């Protein structure tokens, strides 16, 4: 061994400063598990950072509006269930409200209360499931989601009992609801509503302070207040950006002016705000439900004359605060039994407008959470 050649060596350490990356275009979906259905994102990535994102949809398009224009007004009531299949009760209500506005139909008191109860139960199960799916996207595979689905099942049992179907309820009619509540239903509903806060306490203890949720949701996908208004964002996404706009308070449709509830608002407009707004809104829904269940009057639930009617030539735009945002129906009648124009204003379709704005500059893994926090249902986006 020649010891003269043994000496310390110098090494060059590669800094990586001259490393060049190419922009990579990825088609995320339509079979990606995070897209909540057949939805595709055309993403351009610089490293892991999103530089461009175009949402692509229409895979479930069946031209709902055209089909509704070939049938009677009542004929498309069951089809509205299939728009946002998580919230068929609120879909029914929005459509019934637009027709009632156009034809000038009155709704009996008891039916208004039943509608409020059904809509708030729908909001509870939608928000609970959304939070479950969002944590699923964050990697908490299944556990919070199954807790939410377990609670949702109690509510779907109530829907089935009243309407005959868990999800495709087809329960509302023009001028009321299809049938009165079965005996014992209100007592069971009270029990479900009284038990719900315990689930929420458990849920919030598990999730709100969780370090992974905090670090992955806070300051991710910030939606500025002005952009949210200009881009017609509605529902929890809008209120997470700090805009006080809840159609239950603004329009006071139904009997919402009789209940005492608050509108939770976010301050930053990030994913964490959108997540928390849902949890807080559930608390307010429980409040409304308790008041409605305590004060629901007796009486008729529909106007039997309002079947198969033929509205006068008129047009109307009716809207409600659905769990996902403003759900509206624009109807034009030409005096025939079929609508001349039937248009749905789907909240999750329009809320997707700002998906690119929220994702730019974020990591690709965060795009999944941002999409999850918008809360889309493809049955409604594609129609």
């Amino acid at each position: 061994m020649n010891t003269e050649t043994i000496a310390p060596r110098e090494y060059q350490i590669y800094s990586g400063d001259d490393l060049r990356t190419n922009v990579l275009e990825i088609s995320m979906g339509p079979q990606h598990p995070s897209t909540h259905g057949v939805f595709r994102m055309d993403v351009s990535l610089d490293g892991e950072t999103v530089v461009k994102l175009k949402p692509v949809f229409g895979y479930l398009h069946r031209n709902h509006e055209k089909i509704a224009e070939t049938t009677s007004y009542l004929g498309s009531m069951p089809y509205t269930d299939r728009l946002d299949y998580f919230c068929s009760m609120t879909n029914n209500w929005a459509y019934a409200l637009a027709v009632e506005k156009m034809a000038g139909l009155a709704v009996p008191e008891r039916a208004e209360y039943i509608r409020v109860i059904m809509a708030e139960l729908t909001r509870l199960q939608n928000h609970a499931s959304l939070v479950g799916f969002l944590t699923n996207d964050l990697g908490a595979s299944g556990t919070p989601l199954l807790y939410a689905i377990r609670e949702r099942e109690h509510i779907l049992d109530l829907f089935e009992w009243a309407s005959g179907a868990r999800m495709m309820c087809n329960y509302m009619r023009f001028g009321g609801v299809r049938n009165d509540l079965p005996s014992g239903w209100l007592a069971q509903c009270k029990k479900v509503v009284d038990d719900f806060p315990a689930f929420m306490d458990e849920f919030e203890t598990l999730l709100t302070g969780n370090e992974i949720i905090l670090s992955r949701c806070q300051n991710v996908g910030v939606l500025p207040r002005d952009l949210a208004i200009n881009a017609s964002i509605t529902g929890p996404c809008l209120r997470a950006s700090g805009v006080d706009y809840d159609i239950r308070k603004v329009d006071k449709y139904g009997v919402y002016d009789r209940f005492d509830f608050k509108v939770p608002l976010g301050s930053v407009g990030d994913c964490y705000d959108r997540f928390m707004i849902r949890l807080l809104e559930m608390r307010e829904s429980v409040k409304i439900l308790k008041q409605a269940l305590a004060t629901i009057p007796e009486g008729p639930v529909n106007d039997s004359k309002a079947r198969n009617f033929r509205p006068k030539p008129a047009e109307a735009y009716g809207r409600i605060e659905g769990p996902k945002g403003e759900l509206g129906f624009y109807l034009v009648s030409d005096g025939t039994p079929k609508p001349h124009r039937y248009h749905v204003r789907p909240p999750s379709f329009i809320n997707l407008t700002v998906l690119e704005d929220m994702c730019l500059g974020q990591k690709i893994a965060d795009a999944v959470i941002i999409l999850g926090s918008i809360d889309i249902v493809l049955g409604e986006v594609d129609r």
Partner: protein
Amino acid sequence: MIDLAPILAKFPTVKHDAAANALIVPQALALEVAKWLRDDPAYRMDYASNVAGVDTLPVEKKTKVKQPDGTEREVVTKKPGSMEVVYHLYSMALKHGPITIKQVTTRENPAVTSLTPIYRGAEFQEREAFDLFGIQFEGHPDLRRILMWDEFKDFPMRKDYVEPDDYEYEPTPHDAVLAKAKAHYPKASTSTEAAS
């Protein structure tokens, strides 16, 4: 109900459709009216809620009118068709609305002014009206099909749209579908063909 008189006074070419309580805005003025409605402190219609295309076919109605001499004469009344885009504007700042504005165009060459530069929320909905009605929105930043696929040729929400007759398979066709389906059935072999 929002008072529309100040708008009509400021823009004399804007017409009022009393039946629908809507403003019919000429296309050259659409951007200006929308911008004014959005920024005027009395209105502040900062939120474009709903955008919908409406297609109306021309109507020909024949009515028989009795002449003074006792004979009947047929009178034909024609109503031209039209293509409309309807916007429902609300105010989030002042919590009022809606103001309905309409842009009316022809069925033959439908083109209106896009309001997406004023209301970002109209972006996808105008794309939808372009996709399903074939209405051109001038000034739209990204006018592509949104629900139908890019290669699709026709506009399915138009009232005179005829769907292709192989559009669906039904195991037990009836009525109009049966008549269409018959065209696709294999021809039954006749006795003369069998003899030869």
